[in-house]
């Protein structure tokens, strides 16, 4: 939410919404803010007033409270807010230095920040809910219904026009930036249709107004479809994925049956694993196997009962677990250098390390091997050169 955290592109988007919203507030063209940071300054000033209590603030007190910002910036914004009536003198007399702030600008600021994050859709949803509420009110008259339908017709015309114009005139990148205009449109339309139904049932004489709303909704749906079509057309071979919201992907991944997931790859063909084992590779492998094949005892197993035979993979897992536990010896973490030194010779050390690495990589074992940058060099040790690191248990 903090404008300073947003990157340039997002900043531009924020500013666009602010400009749009402020357009109805500004007294004259050209007086619009051009830097979203100024909104932070405004907020800081209003925050300071909230803290100040009923005594209000002087300009100097405000700049002091907002000392995170340059002095002149605060003085200037203070003046702008004062001119717009967001800040007024505590008592209206010539020498009054203390001021108070109205609460409405702060509400506006919160609203703007929400709009800029969510593109105004959530607000539109809420407005539609309010419309439904008001036309359902037993006290409501046909005039109320007409006004409600009229407001919604205009909102959807504006939405539809904006999209249609974007589709016709803007670059794909601009269109993609505004993709949120198209998201969640079914729910918006559904909500609007609900209000439409309520009004038409209650005041059939408003059918002409209702027809206008239906047309506005249809135009909006068409514009959405056009925009989506154009986006898909230009999205290349993987970029259209970015047109769906993240939640859609998460829901799909979490709630789909394997069959549904697998069906995504229908019609795609992949190569089977086809490793090559040349006779020469086999000869070399046997050579190294023979050379290093000295005695090794099995690591202890957690249980020795004769259960149904586990799969080889599961046996492997238990072997790795046993080895990891042996190395940890009850501790939650152990230094790799210590493990290496304890192993004595290098051949043993590298085998132990290999198993710890395997335990780390095993997706059903809760251990991790974390390397750091340091290196221990000790000519007297069994393994003189050793990279520092830690092997530890991961909380599952």
């Amino acid at each position, binding site marked *: 939410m903090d404008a300073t955290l947003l990157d340039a592109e997002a900043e531009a988007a924020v500013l666009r919404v602010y400009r749009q919203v402020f357009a109805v507030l500004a007294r004259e063209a050209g007086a619009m803010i051009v830097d979203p940071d100024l909104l932070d300054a405004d907020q800081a000033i209003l925050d300071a007033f909230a803290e100040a209590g009923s005594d209000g603030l002087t300009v100097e007190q405000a700049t002091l409270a907002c000392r995170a910002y340059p002095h002149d910036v605060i003085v200037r914004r203070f003046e702008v807010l004062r001119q717009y009536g967001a800040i007024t003198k505590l008592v209206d007399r010539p020498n009054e230095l203390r001021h108070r702030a109205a609460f409405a600008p702060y509400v506006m600021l919160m609203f703007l920040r929400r709009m800029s994050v969510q593109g105004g859709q959530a607000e539109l949803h809420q407005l539609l809910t309010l419309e439904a509420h008001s036309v359902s009110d037993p006290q409501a008259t046909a005039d109320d219904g007409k006004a409600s339908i009229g407001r919604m017709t205009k909102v959807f015309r504006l939405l539809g026009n904006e999209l249609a114009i974007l589709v016709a005139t803007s670059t794909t990148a601009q269109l993609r930036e505004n993709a949120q205009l*198209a998201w969640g449109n*079914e729910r918006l339309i559904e909500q609007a249709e609900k209000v439409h139904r309520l009004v038409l049932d209650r005041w059939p004489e408003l059918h002409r107004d209702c027809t206008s709303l239906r047309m506005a909704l249809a135009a909006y749906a068409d514009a*959405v*479809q056009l*925009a*989506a*079509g154009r*986006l*898909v*057309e230009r*999205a*290349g*071979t*993987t*970029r*259209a*994925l*970015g*047109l*769906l*919201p*993240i939640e*859609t*992907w*998460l*829901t*799909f*991944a*979490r709630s*789909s*049956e*394997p*069959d*549904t*997931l*697998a*069906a*995504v*790859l*229908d*019609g*795609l*063909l*992949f*190569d*089977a*694993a086809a*490793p*090559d084992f040349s006779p020469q590779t086999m000869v070399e492998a046997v050579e190294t196997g023979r050379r290093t094949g000295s005695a090794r005892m099995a690591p202890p197993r957690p249980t020795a009962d004769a259960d149904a035979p586990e*799969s080889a*993979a*599961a046996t492997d897992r238990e072997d790795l677990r046993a080895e990891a536990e042996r190395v940890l010896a009850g501790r939650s973490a152990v230094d790799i250098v210590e493990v290496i030194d304890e192993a004595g010779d290098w051949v043993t050390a590298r085998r132990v390390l290999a198993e710890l690495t395997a335990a*780390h*990589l*095993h*997706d*059903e074992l*809760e251990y*991790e091997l974390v390397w750091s940058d340091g290196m221990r060099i000790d000519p007297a040790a069994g393994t003189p050169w050793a990279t520092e690191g830690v092997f530890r248990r*991961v909380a599952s």
Partner: protein
Amino acid sequence: MTEQHALFDPLLQDLSDRSRDEVLAAFSAVQYAAHPVAEVQLAGLRDVTLRRQVQRMLKLIGRTLVHVDGTHWTAGYDDDIASSLVAQGWQPLSVIDRAVLVLVLVHSVAIPRSEGILTGDSWKSARPTTVDELRTTRISGEERRLALQRLRAAGLIQLSGDHSGGPSYIPGPQLQRLTPAARRRLQDQLILAAAPASPIAEAIRARTGGPVEGEDA
């Protein structure tokens, strides 16, 4: 294995020994190397005439050259051959393997795309999919583990270099073998499966001439 090769000889016999070697080396590289190979590395890819021979060889076995990043080459299934096989119902990859692969693609590619943090237009991604993310589905631990093993063996996924949170996976080099048409098909089917009622899905159906769903019947 034999001196004569019934399939390739008619193509190869007209080449000089040197060209033949270069064509065969390039053919082998794009077919069997895990990753795409650099064009500059092989005469059989650099030289347009030789590359055409490589493409002819590939064509004979239902494959085609796939250009990667403008500088590398690999080989994938020819679109027509793939669709003929698909029409026969040919799908050697098991349901579980495909499901696990799709989960990796969702977490490593689709989600980062929605976050706007992936550049380029391929299925490559460095964003790891953790085992926890794979765990959230209706696939048992043992099934998942074996599927991950098979997918790794085929180069469809690979271990991510980032082991900070235990093992994690990213899409494997084999995904680079997809032709542009196959890449797009994968994108479209992923969107159609995840958000069938979205305007984007509808636009995809409109473009591919598929059945238009999501409208009230």
